[in-house]
């Protein structure tokens, strides 16, 4: 199929490289333009129809790309690119959006393109508004969970705990529902540790708000949903500190 894309990137070599990579993966992909700045991007969106997807560098010549979402609702998938921007990456992960790290790996780019081809046009505007909130320093309320054909938004405050299951993660919610997600527990730890979650064990990430009891002798905790969770010996001290027991 003949996909159309837009490259938003301020460094010419990087943009040229993307062009080359896209062409080598799929010759039919049509690159509508290369835009170096927020200003140019906004200008383009007000004069053109949306392409099928966008490749967007986070750091643009006149600011961070998230400024664009404040002005335009973008109803198409975006693949973010960045060399190294931990904070922005956290925001992207929290919203279950696609991203690629520079130098861009051809295989990863090909995978991302395949994923976009497969999905029917989803409405992603909600993701981006949450992203803008996060970049503006507003504490995020929801976390995005990618499902087969849609994105599900879950209240972070409703997650009691998360449990690792090889490359998948089980989410235990306050209403006793259980969700399986294809992301590692480490991913969740990265994005949730600032939001009241703590990794008490290799296999367990817990919401500190739902800790009911701490058993000193067995070194376990009981969550408010009745689950008993093991605490690693080397995490004990930090946990007690976080709970304000010590």
């Amino acid at each position, binding site marked *: 199929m003949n996909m159309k894309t837009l490259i938003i990137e301020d460094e010419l070599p*990087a943009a040229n490289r993307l062009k080359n990579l896209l062409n080598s993966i799929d010759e039919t992909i049509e690159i509508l333009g290369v835009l170096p700045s927020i200003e140019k991007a906004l200008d383009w969106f007000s004069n053109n129809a949306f392409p099928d997807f966008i490749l967007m560098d986070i750091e643009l*010549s006149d600011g961070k790309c998230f400024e664009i979402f404040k002005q335009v609702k973008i109803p198409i998938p975006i693949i973010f690119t960045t060399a*190294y921007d931990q904070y922005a990456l956290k925001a992207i992960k929290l919203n279950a959006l696609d991203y690629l790290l520079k130098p861009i790996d051809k295989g990863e780019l090909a995978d991302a393109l395949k994923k976009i081809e497969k999905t029917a046009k989803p409405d992603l505007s909600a993701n981006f508004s949450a992203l803008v909130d996060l970049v503006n320093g507003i504490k995020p309320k929801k976390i995005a969970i990618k499902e087969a054909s849609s994105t599900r938004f879950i209240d972070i405050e409703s997650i009691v705990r998360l449990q690792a299951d090889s490359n998948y993660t089980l989410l235990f919610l306050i209403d006793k529902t259980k969700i399986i997600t294809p992301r590692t527990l480490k991913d969740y730890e990265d994005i949730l540790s600032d939001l009241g979650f703590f990794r008490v064990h290799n296999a367990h990430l817990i919401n500190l708000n739902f800790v009911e009891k701490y058993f000193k002798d067995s070194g376990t905790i009981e969550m408010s949903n009745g689950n008993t969770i093991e605490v690693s010996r080397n995490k004990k001290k930090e946990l007690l500190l976080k709970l304000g027991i010590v």
Partner: protein
Amino acid sequence: MWIATRDTGLILMTKNHLRFFNTTNGLVSNFTHCLNLDYQGNIWVGTNTGISNIMLHYDNERNCIIDSIKNIVLPNLKEINCITSIKNIVYSGTNTGLVSFDLSKLGINKTPPPVYITGLKINNKIVSINSQKINLNYDENNIVINYVGLTYRDASNTLYRYKIKELDTGWIYTQYTAVQYPKLPPGSYSFVVSARNSDGVWSKDYATIGFTIDPPLWATWWAKASFLLVLVLLLYWRLHIILKRERIKVETNRIVTDMQLRELREQMDPHFLFNNLNTLSYLVENKLPDAPIFVNELSKYFRYSLQSRNIEFTELRNELQQAERYIHLLKIRYGNKLLVHWDIKDAMLEYFISNHSLQLLLENITKHNILSEENPLVVEIKTTEQSALIVKNNLQPKAGNEESTGLGLKSIDERYNLLYNKNIKILRTADYFYVELPLLSPYEYENTYN
């Protein structure tokens, strides 16, 4: 008319007037029994304890003037009931019989009475006087001194005078033979006393006693000295602590600055690294001739960063070289979006500059400003006559970019301040951003660096 009374001495009655003569006037006793006028008009008074001879005359208005009163006290001359005199011979009737004496032979007592200290009481306890110098504690300060003047005639009319040299300005007169000082303050004292017999002759020598009341322990000189010493020590100690704290503060400041700068220097700036690697991928994939040059520059840049981590100040030459590499790498990525103008005087190349400072400035400038074809970022780097390096750029801040914390600039400034007592200058206007970094001559660098 003269009247002798049993308890008020003599009374002289004139027309409408009474005059009294008693012991206060010098009479031997107020218990008078008899009186007699002799051929000279003088009055002889017989009392229970002796005889008084009052010499007097009358002035033109017939007023009686007393010239002198002389008392005769003898062991067998008591309770004189009658008295008369014929020329110089005085006859008196006493309780032991008739006593007569020749007035001309009865001279005045010219013997000075010797005077002695007879006793000492401290806090109402009798203390023996062994030595001339007596040491007392500060609370042994209620002192009674007894003394006596020896006279063989008319002892009751002995008059004393005494003083404590250190306390009294004049003599104190008394007929008592004891004096009490109830609350003497600490100090060294000498008490002196002398006596006068009834004929007005004073002792030849003083009787004296010296004593010292020690101050309480806390008031002794060495106590005061120790106190002062302790105070001085405390002050010194306190000062020492304050100075130490100040030193620690300065040292800590320095260490913190060190760490901040080192951290900044050590930061490989991952963003920069990965972007460059991305560029490199592009150059290599397209077999562009720039690729080897780019790899070379990139290697040199990171090698210098690593090698110069622990250097505080470096020659401007080195800092400029590194800046050139940095800008070269940036120009490959940004092309004409970034323009740099150099104006460096060769003489300044051997001057010293805070290591990594220019580098840090350039990083900040490119991070916070818009780089675009239409509005290129223009950076001027030049030396001045006043030994400074100026870095100036046009201000075109990026949107939504959080205000820079200025931590990097601050730590460079602190470094200059701590080591060379100099400051960097920062000027921000609506149009441009301007920083002036001091350059140190090799002499300054050698001599002020601590």
